[in-house]
């Protein structure tokens, strides 16, 4: 019979334990640990991307119509349903979701595990419906395009470089983009657009300018 730890058992009797003594000695989470979510409503633009990518359905967004025509938007993160995969934080173009190193997520009531924040969104500027459809451009390839970024923070497409892959339309959380491959058109619905920048981020040709 072979007892590999016999000597160690005796030597341990006279040396210090390797115990972390947790509740008495506080412990820090390792850098990069994904703990309790911190939500910054002042940065959020309510694009809804986080809600779409969440695998645990932990994020709920509620919209409350205020009397002055503006919307009060509340995002609630249920930590009791979260997998802490941080996909929402990765997809958030405005960095409004942050995973902190706080791991003390112990609750006796379910409400204690909810992280929530709300902000008031300004009403969209009403424009003539005709103006919304003017973005569709069709320029022969090779020609120098003079596309300038818009001052209201909404995306502009550079038709000289665009290959009409439709990726931006697929990724748009507000369904504000319509791209027709056959007709080679790129259309933005300004009323729907929330200026999140997801289209510019996913564009393989970097032809969307914000």
């Amino acid at each position, binding site marked *: 019979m072979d*007892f*590999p*730890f*016999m000597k*160690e*058992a*005796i030597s*341990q*009797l006279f040396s210090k*334990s*390797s*115990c972390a*003594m947790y509740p008495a000695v506080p412990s820090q989470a390792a850098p990069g640990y994904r703990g309790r979510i911190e939500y910054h409503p002042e940065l959020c633009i309510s694009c809804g991307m986080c809600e779409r990518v969440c695998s645990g359905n932990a994020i709920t967004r509620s919209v409350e119509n205020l009397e002055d025509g503006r919307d009060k938007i509340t995002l609630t993160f249920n930590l009791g349903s979260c997998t802490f995969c941080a996909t929402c934080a990765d997809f958030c173009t405005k960095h409004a979701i942050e995973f902190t190193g706080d791991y003390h997520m112990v609750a006796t009531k379910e409400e204690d595990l909810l992280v929530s924040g709300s902000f008031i969104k300004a009403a969209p500027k009403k424009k003539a419906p005709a103006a919304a459809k003017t973005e569709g451009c069709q320029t022969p390839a090779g020609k120098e395009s003079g596309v300038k970024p818009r001052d209201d923070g909404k995306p502009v497409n550079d038709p000289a470089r665009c290959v009409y892959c439709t990726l931006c339309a697929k990724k748009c959380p507000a369904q504000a983009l319509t791209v027709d491959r056959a007709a080679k058109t790129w259309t933005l619905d300004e009323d729907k657009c929330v200026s999140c920048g997801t289209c510019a981020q996913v564009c393989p040709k970097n032809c969307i300018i914000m």
Partner: protein
Amino acid sequence: MTIVIDALQYLGYVLIFPGFLFCFLAGMLLCGIDRKLVAKMQKRVGPPILQPFYDFFKLCGKETIIPAAAERNTFMLSPLVGLAALVVIQLFIPVFGFTAFSGIGDIIVILYLLLVPALAMILGGAASGSPYAGVGLSREMVTIISCELPLVLVLLAVAKTVGGAIGTGLCFSLSQIAEYQEVNGSLITKISMLPAAAAMLLLIPGETGSHPFDAAEAETEICEGLLAEYSGAPLGVFKLSHAVKMLSLTSLFVALFLGGLGTGILALDAVLLFLLCALITAASISFVHAFTARLKIEQIFKYYWTVVSLLAAVSLALAWYGL
């Protein structure tokens, strides 16, 4: 009048020292020391030494569930029977010079009484009607049988050594063994007794059902076997029995091999007995527990009937030839 005083004295023996109260306090403390030492050897901090007391009092405050399939009276009474038998053993074991009850054949009585706690557990487990208890029951029986042969050999070797020296053939009286050691020094100093002492040390964890030999109460595979259906106070009494059994066996070791160290003052002797018991617990139970994994039941059987029995038999043979 003297009858009343005698009766009171015996009542004191049974209830206070070396009976129930001493068994309760010393056994629980031994159990706590054992858990602390095991934790220490495994690089842990371990529970406080008073943890077995906390466990016991907590279990007393819990609801006691009696399963519908259980035989009510046997289920509730068997823990008490086991504990009572252990307290009686403690009465027979001399504390160096002092013996509460002594007789000509008290080793034989102890041998039988040591079976009673295990039998009580088997009865209680069988009465609980749980299939896990059924598995634990058969394993507990095999463990008893495996421990019994080497234990008898060890006791025979001691009896032969002392009996040969004082000229009675075989000496089965613990008080006579204690007296012999008072005069001639501890038995462990004899070469012929060394293998027997080693065998006894190896026997203690098996008899108490401590770690490598706890196949009968394997909590990870058969839900603590015989105790699977017990809850609340009866479970607490079983845990207490386990602690007292540790005390009984270690103090039996002291009586058999380490006698003659007494000071003559009862209180000091009791403390000395407890310290020696703690030392033996540390060596035979905690140390083995710290670095071994649970053995299979047939391995336990094989181990006790070959290695340990051989050690004891060597000792018996040496004693027979008067070495």
